[in-house]
């Protein structure tokens, strides 16, 4: 531990964001960085707890106290090595992770938690800058091939780990570029795409073969896959968005958030292809339905596109304001979260349900909403009740549905492979990430349903371990 008294002497200091007036004009990353000295001081606040709750809460179980210490000492190599030991892509999680670790940091009990996520990002950036992150191809190649379907965080993790163990790995991606949700789901202002490319270069140099633009199950049949590979790992994510089937749903101007976001991402990347829908918010009254992170990304993107107004609807009630500490520690407390995108201009409404889309000329113009109230029923379950006479309409030229995802897309690969699904429609995983079909494994959201980048990464790591166990007999 750097300084046992660090947490007493040093206050939490966040790097913060670029000024709003500046950042809403571009799609560059909004978050700033601290100078090295301040960053080390922030690391010194880590107490190296006997029971590091952060490390427990972290889905990849990052060795947080250990790399905080290395960071404090300025040992970037060690810090980076430790980070990479549990997570192949700390540069992604360092940017986009909601940081459950910080919620469970023991300082969150009565103080402000350590800036764990920012510290992670700082380490990995410095390590890249100093050239400490180098390709580590396997020393010996095994004579076995693995196909990974999907190139999001789960797929990339599986691929990276298996490749390093000596397997020959091919990654198939239906989109035109590798990265899955990372590339086309998360806006550039949160995760710049050259950060992904930087990592992909390394993985490629380590010997992974990437096959973008190949849709497994279509361009490459399930049979071929099974025939050509010793194991297949399905990591296609939970691509099927939750829909809102209310009257007027078929009006124009109502889109799934992911379509909206990936369109913009492609624009930024400059590889927009003809034929994609042109979803733009410029000069429109935008309503985002769904109060989660994807919704928030839509808000930020809409503002950057020049929306006239942005409104975000959330059916659940407004969470409590952040008290500065976590009364439910070490478990998360549902607190108000205000993202950088919210700060950029957005009207947020809670406890409202959408009743119908109203429009003319087949184009949506308004949404009818109603206030709702949540109460416990006799079984202790929360039940929603509409408040009478609260019906009203709000303007909406562009409606973005950001209500989460139901399960992976079944059509195509999964159905062709004939994998079983669980009750929720996710791929049914037996022990060790195996599916009901021999040789076929599953990782990430396709297994668990939509979840965090860091969770998908962990799932990938575990799947790789299990595939190795399966193949290494």
């Amino acid at each position: 531990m750097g300084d046992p008294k660090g947490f007493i002497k040093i206050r939490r200091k966040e790097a913060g964001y670029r000024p709003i007036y500046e950042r809403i004009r571009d799609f560059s990353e909004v978050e700033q960085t601290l100078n090295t000295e301040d960053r080390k001081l922030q690391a010194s606040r880590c107490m190296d707890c006997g029971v590091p709750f952060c490390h427990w809460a972290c889905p990849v179980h990052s060795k947080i106290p250990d790399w905080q210490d290395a960071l404090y000492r300025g040992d970037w190599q060690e810090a980076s090595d430790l980070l990479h030991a549990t997570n192949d892509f700390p540069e992604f999680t360092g940017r986009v992770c909601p940081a459950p670790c910080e919620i469970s940091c023991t300082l969150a009990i009565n103080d402000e938690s350590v800036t764990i996520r920012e510290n992670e990002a700082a380490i990995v950036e410095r390590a890249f800058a100093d050239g400490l992150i180098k390709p580590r191809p396997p020393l010996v190649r095994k004579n076995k091939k693995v196909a990974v379907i999907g190139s999001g965080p789960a797929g990339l993790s599986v691929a990276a780990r298996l490749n390093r163990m000596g397997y020959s790995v091919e990654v198939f991606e239906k989109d035109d570029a590798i990265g899955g949700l990372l590339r086309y789901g998360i806006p550039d202002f949160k995760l710049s795409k050259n950060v992904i490319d930087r990592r992909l270069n390394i993985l490629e140099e380590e010997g992974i073969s990437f096959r973008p633009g190949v849709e497994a199950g279509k361009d490459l049949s399930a049979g071929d896959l099974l025939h050509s590979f010793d194991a297949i790992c399905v990591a296609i994510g939970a691509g099927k968005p939750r829909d809102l089937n209310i009257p007027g749903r078929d009006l124009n101007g109502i889109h799934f958030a992911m379509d909206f976001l990936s369109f913009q991402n492609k624009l930024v990347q400059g590889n927009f292809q003809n034929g994609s829908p042109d979803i733009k918010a410029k000069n429109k009254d935008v309503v985002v339905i769904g109060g989660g992170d994807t919704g928030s990304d839509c808000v930020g993107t809409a503002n950057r596109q020049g929306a006239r107004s942005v409104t975000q609807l959330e059916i659940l009630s407004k969470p409590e304001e952040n008290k500065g500490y976590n009364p439910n520690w070490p478990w998360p407390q549902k607190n108000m979260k205000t993202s950088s995108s919210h700060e950029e201009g957005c009207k947020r409404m809670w406890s409202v349900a959408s009743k119908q889309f109203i429009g003319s000329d087949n184009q949506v113009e308004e949404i009818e909403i109603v206030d709702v109230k949540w109460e416990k029923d006799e079984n202790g379950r929360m039940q929603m009740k509409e408040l009478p006479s609260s019906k009203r309409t709000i303007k909406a030229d562009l409606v973005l549905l950001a209500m989460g995802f139901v399960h992976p897309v079944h059509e195509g690969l999964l159905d062709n492979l004939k994998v079983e699904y669980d009750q929720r429609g996710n791929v049914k995983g037996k022990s060790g990430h195996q599916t009901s079909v021999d040789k076929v494994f599953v990782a990430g959201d396709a297994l668990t349903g939509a979840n965090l980048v860091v969770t998908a990464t962990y799932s990938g790591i575990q799947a790789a371990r299990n595939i190795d166990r399966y193949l290494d007999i």
Partner: protein
Amino acid sequence: MAYLPPNSGLYNRQNEHDNCGIGFVAHVKGERSHGIVEKGLEVLANLRHRGAEGADSNTGDGAGITIQIPREYYMSQGIDLPEEGRFGTGILFLPQVEKEAQYCLDKLKEFAEEKGLELITTREVPVDPNEIGDLAREEQPIIRQVFLKADLSQDILERKLFILRRKLEKHIETSGLKDKERFYVVSLSSKVVIYKGLFTSLQLKNFYKDLNDERTISAIALVHSRYSTNTFPTWDLAQPFRMLCHNGEINSVQGNKYWMHARSSLLKTDMLGDEINEVLPVIQPDKSDSAALDNTLEFLVQSGKTLPHAMAMLIPESWNARNPIPDNVKAFYEYHSTFMEPWDGPAAVLFTDGRFIGGLLDRNGLRPSRYLLTDDDLMIMSSEVGVLEVPDKHVKEKGRLRPGKILMVDTLEGKINYDPEVKQELAMQKPYAKWLKEKEITLDDIPFAKKIPVGVGQDHDRMLLSFGYTLDEIKYIIHPMAQDAKEPVGSMGNDAPLAVASKMPQRLFNYFRQHFAQVTNPAIDSIREEVIMTLTGYIGSHQKNLLNDIPDHARMIKFLNPVITNKYLEILKNLKYKGFFTTTIPILFDAHAGPDGLKQGLEKICRKAEQAVDEGKDYIILSDRGISKDKAPIPSLLAVSAVHHHLIKKQKRIQIDIVIETGEPREVMHFALLFGYGASIINPYMAFAVIDQLVREHKLQMDYYTAEAHYTKAVRKGIFKIMSKMGTSTLRSYRGAQLFEAIGLNRKFVDEYFTGTASAIEGLGLEEIGWEALIPHKKAFSDQRINFNQEFQGTSYYRYDSEDHAWNPETIGYLQHAAWNNDQELYKKFSEASDRFTWAPGFVRGFLDFNRNPIDISKVEPAENIMKRFVTGAMSFGSLSKEAHETLAIAMNRIHGKSNTGEGGEDSRRYKVTSKGENKRSAIKQIASGRFGVTTHYLVNADEIQIKIAQGSKPGEGGQLPGTKVDSVIAKTRNSTPGITLISPPPHHDIYSIEDLAQLIFDLKNVNPEAKINVKLVSEFGVGTVAAGVAKGGADSIAVSGSEGGTGASPLSSILHAGLPMELGLSETQQTLVKNNLRDRVVLYTDGQLKTGRDVITAALLGAEEYGFATGALVTVGCILLRKCNLNTCSVGVCTQDPKLRERFIGKPEHVINYFRFLAEEIRHYLAELGFTKMEDIIGRSDLLFQRKDIDHWKLRNISLADVTHFPPEARENGIRKSVDQKPLPDDLLDRRLIEEAEPALSSQKTVNISHEIQNTNRATGAMLSYKVDKLYGEKGLPDDTINCYFKGSAGQSFGAFLKSGITFKLEGQSNDYLGKGLSGGKIIVKTADDAAFDPSKNIIIGNTTLYGATGGEVYINGLCGERFCVRNSGATAVVEGAGDHCCEYMTGGVAVILGEVGRNMAAGMSGGIAYVYNPNGDLDYFCNMEMVNLEIIEDFEDLITLKKLIQNHHEYTGSHLAGRILDNWEESLKDFIKVIPFEYKRHIEEQKLQELNQKINKYLPEQE
């Protein structure tokens, strides 16, 4: 039941201990008389409180007497004896069956004739069995006396008798006699005869009628009264033995026995010739440590060594540079130390061969031994003074045995040989110094220029993996050792699974636990008492035969440091040119052959080692250099121990030494184990390579050599600590002593490779050990790139995917929210999560389940009853914040449970209930070795007083509270100085043995007759036996703590590697107490990671009545196991004194209560399941427990808990839970009369004067009187000199203990140990009679350990005192005319004036207070331990005033001539005074003065805005 019962359950006869009272009376001129015999018996009678009684209160533990053969008396009994010296006699204990007895006698006759001895007659010894206890009588052997003669010179006759006895003993041992265990030759000699048996010290005389006859005359009488931990009737273990009697304990006895056995094939002596084979083995099996020492002494003497020579070989004094002894004597010791390892441990040994009679004390002087010489040539030596009353005017000399010193009376020459002459004579026998100079070389002095690499090259990481290194190990263990040159400190307990149950790969080291001393022998303070510690060792050409004094024994390589760098290993490999030969034996095995490869590998190295012996090599180097994909390292410990025991079995061990070059050991425990199982030198090359890398990566900001030196220093200190825990002070006696026990290794494996080591719960064998070595090796040599950054063991610090922990985020989170929100559901979740860990299994109890026979829960007693059995852990105010400490106390008082002060005193304001009705007083007051805050007032305000012998997390060690945590409030509570680190010594300096503990219990019962006395022990192999002794010592309650228990700060290795889990110690204690029929008089308490209802139920079934919770209770008030207690940075305000952090404390008594209520309800639920209505009914019902069958893990297949759940058959008759009280204090206590006579003072503060005769059996005089005063007048007591008591005679132990303000004791005569213990404001004056025939300033009049833990008051001693004057004094003022070793040790306050010489190691650990020493020789710096103090001349005005006033007082109170002389020449004398003051303390005083000055100045300054 005959003699010691066989081992059953966890009871093991090996663990029996005894300590005793000893003494002798001798006529210096050899005049024989019956009076000497009578006086001997009188000494014995007056030592009766040092003996003990068993469950049957008439049967003593043993007593005996050695006298010269009373020839005339025997002749008067009709036996025709030749002249003196031409015959021998001996008393025999024979089988009870007449036929078998006769067989023994027949054999004796037969063998005697073979040896040319004629049996004159066999005599029935006249005894009176009515005089002894029932048990003793039942077990009484047939007792016969034989007389043998031969026409030989006496020395040859004596030797013949010795050979005859050995031959007979060996014959009967292997015979088919049913009752052969009863056969025992008490003595067989031409010089002395011994009468002994299973008596109390008063019964001996009446049992043996011979002793009462006027014609039974002798010039010597050596007596012994035994206090044994057991109550089994064993006639033969009574002492004296053939040549000696012993008070103490030989800690290293296991190793001593092995080494004696190992060297026996080499023993040759002209004295015994071929007959030596009839004598060997030297040591009789299955006897006590004292008996083994006696065997060895006798053997050496019969082989031609003189008595003092043999004694000095066996128990040498400390002869390092800090000891003022002549160089030729040092050479004598060094020469002998090359081939004879010390018998190490506390020991006062009295010995005689009929002509010489004398005594010897161990190097640390841990047993008292005082003597006086009368004007009619009687020498009386004993554990105590006053055992024979002699008026001062007839006393020529009063003295004591000093540490390591010898004293002998030669009754033939009629003179006394004092130590310097005896030792000089020994030293002059041979030119030892010359031999050493010529033959011995010192490793550290050999020049060597070649540079030896430290790194291990590109395979570094692979080797790390193969040897099982982990990142956290480097970070938390190796790095701090190299950084700070000391072992890392940890806090909280060990809540990770046992090695055997862990899912992580374990090193073999982790299956072992360190032994430690508790009660029966003291641990040593290896830091403050370094003067007696040494690691120096020798390898090389071992003696072929220790019985010859030849120069070649000195042909050795001496080394000062047994942990050597690569350079010195290289030297050792190349000493051929100096005439030393070695061979390197690889300890690698075929990695592809699986565990079989390991077996073959072991066989191969054993073979090679044997071959090396045959080839005459001096030492072998076992080496695991060169591991590869194909070659895996044999666990280094297994390699060493296998070779060690193989060579012992082949009787080839002594010829060769073991050096090991290994990558495996890195933490202190590893080194300790390697030494403990036989290694002489260790080269830990991988640890060095790690340090090298740390330096190269700048993780250590120093050059490599400094880091390396730091690391080896840390190891050395750690070894010292582990050795000293067992009271061992030299590595030579520690080596091979196997002071460890195993958990989770099976019997067969242990018997084969770790012969003689105790092993609990069975478990792994060679095959599993093989796999465990191969798993990491395979990983290390995988084809792929390896990643060391993923390797975490997670033993201390929780890491996911590493070691499991009972306290993990889930259990902590659930328990806190359950307690805070009073949420039963969350408690259930907590309890499930916690039990899941236990059940994994994480703890031993996880292997156990219980039978069910459900009843309705409504029938079960209410939770309130159960909560009364709950106790919170002993955590001091000082380690805990005030808020946390008081919260726990309030909570426990509300539920009628008990909280415990811990070792740190308690603010007396807490004794009164607050206006809001809050009771913050802790029911249990702890008294630990530091005696912090232990005032009379504190003790009087206790419901229960707990004597903390050991602490679960660091048993056998002292502790310290860092200065940063000592703020002004804490300093006040502890009677110390703010900012100054407080040290608790490893032992209680008034408990070096079991009878000392009985004395302390007696003291405490006197100072608070209402309180229950509890003794806290820590679970280890043998704890049950210790507990039996404690129960016999009068304790009302015994705590058996699990080694997993928490701590504020302990060395990491102690938290993890010392002591045993609660279950093992508890069940052993229960079984042993039941077997001894002692269980019903004590309450059993246990703790150690107890959390849930299941835990408590299991503990109850194993025998515990009360249950302790420390971590659990702390978690409810906010603790999150940061493990930062030692840093004062607890971020939740629980374990810190930082006011800012204390503000963060959120705990409330309700939280604690909620937890305990849920727990009690859960227990009720289990009781209903078990089918019992009351908790009481399940206590000790281990028959309801069974071992789970559903655990299927490759490492756990062979576990067996049969010994743990063993339900002793004696339980059918004997109580299995507490049902009766201990005997109350006797009615005839002197204090009861003092209280009566002091009535006017007690009722109305009138001055009273009281006079009494006093004798050594009057113990703890004044303690109960002080209790009365405190009860009536509170903390302040009475005005000075209100109650004045005048005594004449010899006061017993603890004279004036806890004496309160207002009481003055004046004693004319002398006193024993522990004078003024815990003095609380009273005044004690001890003066020599005016008509004394000796000079008081040269004679000793009070004993050892004076003013231990005194907090105030005054003491004046007109004479010398023993060791440890003013030890841990924190406030009393004392004047004495000369002191022994360790004067003012650990003192934190008060003033000591010593008007004469002091012994070695003065002021060790002294952090406060001042001593003034009159030192005309100007050599105080040599005797002073300068670690913490400055020596100054007296120039300060205040010093002058204080000193003069005290000397004037001394003169006035005692009439001291010395004081008079000093005062008469005050100006001159003053120059010879030296002031000893701790520098930290001095700085504090100066700061305080400055502050006061500033305040004064500020008063006159205009107020600022």
